[in-house]
């Protein structure tokens, strides 16, 4: 019992731990909410693209010593716009254009970063996160941007739902579908930027997609999904952080694995859509059929 208390309370004496916990919690929360729209729109690939696209911005900001969050946001939005413009060329499908640009952005980021001294170390912290090295200023940025994002989701939710549900009808009644798309891209970009420090560039997609996907398995109601996804996101992030403390292993990786664990549990045991439930249901259907056949025979 004491060991559990020690494990739970132990790390609290460290400032860096409290900051890490706060950032993990906030990232999980915000990514869960924004990620719900990502999952429902089937735009996980775009999320991945944006995650890569913010990289050169962050690298530039790092080299210049300016704010990483702003640098990442600018690069992400610029890339999103480039993709939107180039994808107007009908010969190329959007996914090819996205593939080209996010790889290019990533390449650019590595080149910029290699100009800075201590290249290897900073590259690693960008790619895989450095949640234990977060400053007070970072925590404030994450909190402020996170609050803005939650507010924006609240304001735009109904219109985003209408546009995702049926673009044709949304356009027909005059909803600004293009601007809603753009707003969602910007929101995804910002959610990714504030979560980068927790899990890093490579893994940030998990924070955006996994909790929302797990929540989708648990419910057929949007409102419930938008509550469950942030709870799963925040819970999984905090769990991962504790595991990292307990076993002294990489925090970013454990956060992602915790989220994945929750997803697998949902996939297996979800009340209506889980694997077990579906198997049992199809068994009972075949039993029913068998029973009916027997009755017919007799």
């Amino acid at each position, binding site marked *: 019992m004491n060991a559990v208390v020690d494990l739970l309370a132990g790390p609290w004496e460290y400032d860096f731990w409290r900051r890490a916990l706060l950032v993990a919690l906030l990232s999980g929360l915000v990514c869960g909410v924004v990620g719900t729209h990502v999952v429902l729109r089937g735009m996980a690939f775009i999320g991945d693209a944006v995650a890569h696209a913010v990289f050169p911005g962050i690298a530039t900001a790092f080299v210049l010593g300016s704010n990483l969050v702003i640098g990442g946001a600018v690069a992400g939005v610029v890339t999103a716009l480039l993709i939107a413009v180039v994808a107007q060329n009908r010969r190329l499908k959007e996914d090819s254009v996205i593939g080209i640009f996010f790889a290019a952005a990533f390449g650019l980021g590595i080149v910029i970063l290699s100009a800075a001294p201590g290249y290897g170390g900073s590259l690693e912290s960008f790619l895989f996160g450095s949640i234990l090295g977060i400053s007070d200023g970072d925590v404030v940025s994450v909190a402020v941007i996170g609050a803005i994002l939650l507010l924006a989701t609240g304001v735009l939710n*109904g219109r985003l739902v209408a546009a995702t*549900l049926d673009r*044709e009808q*949304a356009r*027909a*009644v*005059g909803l600004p579908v293009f601007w809603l798309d753009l707003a969602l891209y910007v929101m995804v970009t910002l959610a990714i930027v504030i979560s980068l420090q927790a899990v890093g560039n490579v893994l940030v997609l998990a924070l955006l997609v996994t909790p929302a996907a797990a929540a989708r398995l648990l419910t*057929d109601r949007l409102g419930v999904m938008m509550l469950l996804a942030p709870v799963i996101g925040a819970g999984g992030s905090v769990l991962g952080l504790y595991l990292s403390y307990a076993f002294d292993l990489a925090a970013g990786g454990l956060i992602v694995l915790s989220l994945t664990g929750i997803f697998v549990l949902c996939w297996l045991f979800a009340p209506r859509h889980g694997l077990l439930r579906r198997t049992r249901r199809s068994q009972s259907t075949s039993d029913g059929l068998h029973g009916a056949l027997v009755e017919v025979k007799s």
Partner: protein
Amino acid sequence: MNEPVLDIVGLAVDLGGREVLSEVDLRLRPGELVGLIGPNGAGKTTLLRTALGLIPPRRGTVAVHGRTAKQAQGSVGYVPQRHEFAWDFPISVAKAVATGRTHLTGLLGRRTEQDRTAVDAAITRVGMDDLRTRPVGELSGGQRQRVLVARALALQPRLLLLDEPFTGIDAPTQELLSGLLTELRDEGVAVLMTTHDLAAATTLCSRLCLLNRTVVADGEPAALADTDIWLRTFGLDRAEQLLRSLGVSR
């Protein structure tokens, strides 16, 4: 009172540099139920989309309630083809119907008493009261069509455009939809629907508009007995088949 609700004059529309519609004239007055008939690729959906302000005309004018199609956006009821809708979205029937009024709500999406009344009435009209809380993913094809119609009716439109509402639905829904469209017509709503179901269109519609890139014929079903019109709209093979189904022989 009898001002046209939809007034299309000399319309030409290009899609991807190719002329899809030319010299189209079509006028709908309150209380008219018009069937838009034509082969695949005749430009039926394009005509609806132009009337909704989704495609700019190259030539000619589209007036809805005396305004341009773009200005009238948000007041016209539209039932697109069923595949436009994301049926895997986690949303209930009632909420899906309510999205038809999303553009009228304030920024936080607060719904007024008027919103709720309109949505409830629309759900009742399509006979979906007992399925209000059902996720849309669990609905049959006919029930899905009802949801789309209810979503359009939630706007309480004076002009209703439907794209292939009778395709792939069960008999009860077909019956309900026919009755509903007739009711709406009697209430003074102008209804324009594209359809492949010629037999249904002939009994249901007060007017048929035969379209193939342009309006080939426009009139009461009985006045369109001239086989030549059908030949020009559909071509020889298809026209013979259609005419047989209508009991008209050449």
